[in-house]
C-alpha cells in the first residue's frame, strides 16, 4: 500500500526525522490558517494524491499545477480553494485524474545540495541495507547503472540492527563533516527506527537536502510497507486511502481474493498464484490478452467464485472468462457445482471455459456438461487457452 506525502511527513515527525514544517488541510480556510501559523511567506501548497507529476498536472477546472509557491496567507487560501474538491490529471493518473480532497501546506527551503538516501529490504542478502548517493534528486536506478561507484551500500545485521558507526560511515562517504555529519547521522538513525518499527520494505528519501542555512532535512519520501506485517501495524493501515486504489482490487481484497487488473479482454480465475500467472501467460501465448490476475486461493468455494465473477464482470473490457482449477485435494465435482451456482447468480452471458483437473474430475466435467448452461469444458491447459481465445476472438 502507498501513503500520501502529508502522511509520510507525519511519520517523519513522529519518529524525529528532520523535515520542513508543514500541515495538511481539508478546506481553504484551514490552509490559510496553517499558512499563517507557518509565517505566511515562503510556503508551498501541494495537492495530495498518490500519483506523481503533480507539479506539471492540470485540474479539470482548468487550473494549472498541483504544486504552488505562495507568499501570503490569502494566496494560500485562494490556491487551496482552487485545488480542493477538484480533479487533478497528471501523466500518472490517466485521463480520469484523481480527486484532491487534501492539500499540504509546507515551508519551502533553499537547497544548497541534494543527496539520495534509502533504507530497504535487500532480497539478495535477506537483510536490510542503507543506500546513499551524492546524486540526489536523480533516478537512482540510472545512477546505479551508469555510475555504480556513486552508490554507497551498507548492510545491516538483522540481529543487532543499525549501529551508530554505520550511520557515521555513510555520512562520511557522502562527504559530510562536522555539524552536517552529526545531523545526517541523527536523521539516518531516526529513519532506521521508523523503517523497522513500521515494518517498511522501503523508505526512500529523494532528495535528502542540505539547506542554505545548513540544515539536513528529508524533503520527499516514498514508502513501501510489508503487506504481511499489516496485521500488527494498525497506524499504518489507518493511513490507507482506498479512493486511490483500483476499486476492483479493493473489492477483491474484501473477499480475500488476490486480483490485479490488466488491459486485456479474457478474464481468468485460478487457484494458486503460480498457476494464475501461468494462465495469463498461456492466454497470451495463444494470441489472447489477459484481463486480470486472480488467485482464489486453495478453496474455490461457491461464495468466492461468485465474488470473483462479480469483480471480473465489473470490468467492461471482459469478453470471456477462463476458469482454471487444479483441484488437488478438493473434489472437482464440488468445485463444478460452485461454478454453476455462481454463473447462475451473476446471470453470466459471456463465454465461459472451465478447465478442471484433479480429484473426481470426471464427475465434475459431467456436472458442467449437464448444467444446461453455456459452459465449455476443456481438457488440459492448452485446450482451455485455445478454446477461450477462439470464443473471444484474437485480440
Amino acid at each position, binding site marked *: 500500500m502507498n501513503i500520501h506525502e502529508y502522511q509520510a511527513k507525519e511519520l517523519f515527525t513522529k519518529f524525529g526525522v528532520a523535515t520542513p514544517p508543514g500541515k495538511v488541510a481539508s478546506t481553504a480556510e484551514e490552509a490559510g490558517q496553517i499558512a499563517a501559523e507557518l509565517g505566511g511567506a515562503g510556503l508551498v501548497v501541494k495537492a495530495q494524491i498518490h500519483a506523481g507529476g503533480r507539479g506539471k498536472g492540470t485540474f479539470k477546472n482548468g487550473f494549472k499545477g498541483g504544486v504552488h509557491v505562495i507568499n501570503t496567507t490569502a494566496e494560500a487560501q485562494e490556491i487551496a480553494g482552487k485545488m480542493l474538491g477538484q480533479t487533478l490529471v497528471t501523466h500518472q493518473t490517466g485521463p480520469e485524474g484523481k480527486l484532491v480532497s487534501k492539500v499540504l501546506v509546507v515551508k519551502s527551503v533553499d537547497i544548497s545540495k541534494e543527496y539520495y538516501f534509502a533504507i530497504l529490504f535487500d*532480497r539478495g542478502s535477506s537483510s536490510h541495507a542503507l543506500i546513499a548517493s551524492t546524486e540526489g534528486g536523480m533516478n537512482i536506478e540510472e545512477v546505479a547503472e551508469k555510475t555504480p561507484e556513486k552508490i554507497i551500500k551498507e548492510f545491516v545485521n538483522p540481529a543487532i540492527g543499525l549501529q551508530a558507526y554505520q550511520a557515521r560511515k555513510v555520512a562520511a562517504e557522502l562527504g559530510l563533516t562536522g555539524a552536517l555529519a552529526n545531523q545526517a547521522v541523527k536523521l539516518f538513525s531516526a529513519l532506521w527506527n521508523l523503517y523497522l518499527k513500521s515494518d517498511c520494505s522501503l523508505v526512500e528519501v529523494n532528495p535528502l537536502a542540505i539547506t542554505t542555512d545548513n540544515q539536513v532535512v528529508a524533503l520527499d519520501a516514498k514508502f513501501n510497507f510489508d503487506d504481511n506485517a499489516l496485521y500488527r501495524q494498525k497506524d499504518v493501515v489507518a493511513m490507507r486511502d482506498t479512493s486511490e486504489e483500483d476499486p476492483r482490487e479493493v473489492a477483491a481484497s474484501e473477499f480475500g481474493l488476490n486480483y490485479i487488473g490488466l488491459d486485456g479482454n479474457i478474464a481468468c480465475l485460478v487457484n494458486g498464484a503460480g498457476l494464475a*500467472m501461468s494462465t495469463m501467460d498461456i492466454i497470451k501465448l495463444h494470441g489472447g490478452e489477459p484481463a486480470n490476475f486472480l488467485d482464489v486461493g486453495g478453496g474455490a468455494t461457491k461464495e468466492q467464485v461468485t465474488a470473483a465473477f462479480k469483480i471480473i464482470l465489473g470490468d467492461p473490457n471482459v469478453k470471456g472468462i477462463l476458469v482454471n482449477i487444479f483441484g488437488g485435494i478438493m473434489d472437482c465435482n464440488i468445485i463444478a457445482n460452485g461454478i454453476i451456482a455462481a454463473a447462475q447468480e451473476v446471470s453470466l452471458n459471456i463465454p465461459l471455459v472451465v478447465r478442471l483437473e484433479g480429484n473426481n474430475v470426471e464427475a465434475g466435467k459431467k456436472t458442467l456438461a449437464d448444467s444446461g448452461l453455456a459452459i465449455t469444458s476443456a481438457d488440459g491447459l492448452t485446450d482451455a487457452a485455445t478454446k477461450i481465445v477462439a470464443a473471444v476472438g484474437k485480440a
Partner: protein
Amino acid sequence: MAILIDTDTKILVQGITGDFGSRHAKASLDYGTQLVAGVTPGKGGQTFEHGSHKVPVFDTVSQAAKETGATVSVIFVPPPFAADAILEGVDAGLDLVVAITEGIPVNDMIKVKAAMKGSKTRLIGPNCPGLVTPGHGEKSHGGCRIGIAPGYIHKRGNVGVVSRSGTLTYEAVWQLTTRGYGQSTCVGIGGDPVNGTNHLDVLKLFNEDPETEAIIMIGEIGGNAEVEAGLWAKDNCKKPIAAFIAGATAPPGRRMGHAGAIIGGADDTAAAKKRILAECGISVADSPADMAAALLKIWKK
C-alpha cells in the same frame, strides 16, 4: 533414495489441532506417511485420532522429537506465531523444518534466517506447499507427504521437481505421471522473498541423488534464484533440466499473489530468466502445459 525425506521419515506437525493443520495431517496419514507426533502448546497429553491412527500431541517440539524419534517438522501455525515455531524446530535439533504458513512478516523471516546461521536444521518455505517423496503403492501410497500437496497425483520414479508455486508444481507432477514418468522428490520452496532453501540448494541435492535422473525447475518473476541455479547447473549439474518461468505477462512493480513474485528490474522478468536459463543449456518451456514435454525433449530420447 530420494532427497531430504523418504518413505520411512518420521514427521511431526506443529499446529496439528488447528483446522488447516488437522485437515492435512489426516491426508498425510491416509497417504501412509509416518506422521508420529503433533505439537500444540497447552494440549500436550491429548491424542489426535483419525481412523485407526492415534497420534500423540505434545506441548513442545523437543518433547515430541525425543519421545517419537521424529526428525522433520511441518508448520501450520498462523503468521504471528510462525517465526517462533520455526525456531522451536531448529532448537529441537530437527533435520528439516517445513513452514507451510503464508503471510509471515518479512522482518520476522529475516531474523529467523539470521538466527539459523550455523544450525544443522534446513528450513523449507515459508509460504510453500511442502514436499512429497512418492511411495511405491497404488497411486503412490506409502510415500512421505509433508504439507498440502495432493498425494495421489504422484508416482515414484526418477524426476526431481523443484518449484516456488504449489498448483504449478501439481501441474508439472501430473504432466509427468500421466505420461508414465514418476518423481523422486517434489520440493515446493515457497513464494516468499526470504526463504530457507532456494532452487540452487535443491538442484545440488538432486545432482547428488542416485535415484534422480532428470529435473524440472519451476520459477517465476522476481529475485535471481532461478538464474543463480541455472548458472551453477551449466558447469556442475550432470543431469538434464527443464524449466518454466511464470509471469511473462505480469506488469512490473506489482506483487502477483506471492510476496516474492514482483518484477524489480530488467533482470528478474520472465523473459530475462528464460533467456539465461536457455543459455545455460536448460530446456525452457514457453507454455506451462509443456513442462514435462520440455524435459522429454532432452531426456529419455
